[in-house]
């Protein structure tokens, strides 16, 4: 596989009427990567995908495919294909005709022969594991099968980039998990760049090589999943990705990438994510970093409110003087029990405290 399929987005802005959907987005998607755009609904991720596909035009900015400006090209002249959230299969065509549609749209001279078309369809159906279903109509398929057909249909023209618009969100949990792995396998087999839009952070983290977190029309952070989870660049990313507890405190001093903090009368140090000395801060602690400490020790005291079973662990929701706190334990703890909560030094990440907007849900 040659390394084609790099997409670059330069300074792209888009608004609908007065509402800004995208604000000066810059993004590099490496060739052959599995790239996820992650964000809550309305963050602009689908708009960005449609602009890459050519189904929407940006107000300003350019889109480059392998270095070539394709901003003005209509969708049918871009080397990209798309998988839609609700499959968008052609209901009046069989599965085979759906999959083969992309081979019938070129001008008559460039169209592949019937034999070649049949063999490409068979190849694609085999790729998605639906070889037997070519004669069915879309109304006779399950959701998972329909989405596989949509993937096969989008891949038949050998696009350099496959765009996937929340392709799994309409499916049942089990089907979703199976199809997730299937997409990963197909990606590894073909080496095509996948741009995958989702609002499901587990999905984004589990299958992507790179994740772009979006919020209110702007990119918050672009990084690999581990970095996104372990060191979220902004408070928004920290809140949106993964579970976590946020404690409010004061910054005593900052040295290099370390910040000395005071939270509920206790001093400890955490990784600095842009705090200022003397300012207010919100400290992120992941549930797996926290542990139950002997009730005399620990850094915080909390009362267990609920204890939920998750198979391999129990999650405790506790109430502490600085707000609610989640932690994972191996053995259940009865609600009402008072425990000490401890964490390793430097485990936390300190973000500048947001104004009242973000503070409300913590203090309440």
């Amino acid at each position: 596989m040659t390394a084609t399929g790099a997409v670059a987005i330069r300074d792209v802005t888009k608004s609908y009427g007065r509402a800004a959907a995208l604000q000066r987005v810059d993004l590099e998607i490496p060739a052959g990567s599995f790239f996820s755009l992650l964000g809550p609904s309305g963050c602009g991720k689908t708009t960005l995908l449609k602009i890459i596909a050519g189904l929407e035009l940006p107000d300003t900015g350019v889109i480059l495919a392998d270095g070539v400006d394709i901003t003005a090209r209509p969708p049918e002249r871009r080397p990209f294909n798309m998988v839609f959230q609700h499959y968008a299969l052609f209901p009046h065509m069989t599965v085979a005709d759906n999959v083969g549609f992309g081979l019938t749209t070129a001008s008559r001279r460039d169209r592949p022969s019937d034999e070649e078309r049949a063999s490409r369809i068979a190849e694609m159906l085999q790729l998605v594991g639906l070889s037997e279903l070519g004669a069915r109509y879309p109304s006779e398929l399950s959701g998972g099968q329909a989405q596989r057909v949509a993937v096969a249909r989008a891949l038949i023209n050998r696009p350099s980039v496959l765009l996937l618009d929340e392709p799994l969100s309409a499916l049942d949990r089990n089907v979703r998990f199976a199809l997730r792995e299937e997409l990963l396998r197909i990606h590894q087999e073909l080496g095509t760049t996948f741009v995958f839009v989702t609002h499901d952070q587990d999905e984004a983290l589990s299958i992507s090589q790179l994740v772009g977190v979006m919020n209110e029309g702007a990119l918050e952070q672009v990084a690999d999943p581990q970095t996104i989870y372990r060191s979220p660049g902004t408070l928004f990313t920290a809140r949106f990705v993964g579970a976590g507890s946020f404690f409010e405190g004061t910054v005593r001093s900052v040295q290099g990438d370390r910040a000395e903090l005071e939270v509920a009368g206790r001093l400890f140090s955490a990784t600095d994510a842009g705090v200022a000395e003397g300012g207010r801060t919100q400290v992120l602690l992941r549930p797996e970093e926290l542990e139950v400490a002997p009730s005399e020790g620990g850094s915080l005291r909390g009362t267990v409110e609920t204890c939920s079973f998750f198979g391999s662990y129990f999650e405790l929701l506790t109430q502490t003087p600085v707000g609610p706190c989640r932690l994972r334990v191996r053995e259940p703890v009865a609600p009402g029990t008072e425990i000490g909560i401890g964490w390793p030094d430097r485990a936390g990440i300190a973000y500048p405290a947001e104004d009242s907007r973000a503070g409300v849900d913590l203090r309440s």
Partner: protein
Amino acid sequence: MRRRSWILTTVAALLFLFIYLPLLVVVLYGFNGGSNLSWPPQGFSLRWFRLIFGEEAFRSGLRVSATAALATAVIAVVIGTAAAFAIARRSNRLTRWFESGSRLPVMLPPLFIGIALVAAMKTFAIDPSMLTIIAGHVIITTPFVILIVVSRLRNYDMTVEQAARDLGATPRMVLRRITLPLIAPAIFGATVIAFAVSFDEVLITNFTSGTTQTLPLFVLSRLHRTIDPSVNAVATILLLVPWVVVGLALLWQRRGSRRGAADAPAETLARAA
């Protein structure tokens, strides 16, 4: 509870009889062997159909009505479908105004439309002919076409068109290979309804036909002169032609619905029938 359902059943049955018994009687007498309308009918025969088909006035009326209905259906469907695309695909003040405006002919009394057409024909010195009959029918059938096609265009998933574009189809290809096949059942249903409405329209036709006689007009004029059993035969034909057409259309759509074609137009059809 049981008592109430018993009453409901009776009322429904009576209503059903009230609506369909006269139709049944007419059809029965259409096949009557005797020559008067006394009960019971005297044996089965096709003599009244033979008599009727032997009359030149009837045959020409049938020809005129069939021609007018076919032409009306084709014209109304072409105009109505084009209008439906404009209404469903572009939403601005003009199209919204146009949409409500296009429904108006359904609510106007046909008598009013008839008088207006006569006035217009006088003003522009247009003589009554087959063309004016068709024009009158197009006016009252186009709103049905618009209604049916717009509702189909509104409740179908636009992303299939985006998907087709994405796979390399030009806008014309999308129209020919995706949009039109998908709304074909609605267009077909609209054609059938336009045909059926035009075939037995009598009020407006009365104003626009001049000396040309459609089948319903033939029946009326014949009733003025005599009441003989042949009228029942004509009425049976007037009843059965639209029913057979609509019935065939429904069958065709049943068969098509397996392929995910919309059931909405089929329902509209069933209601209109």
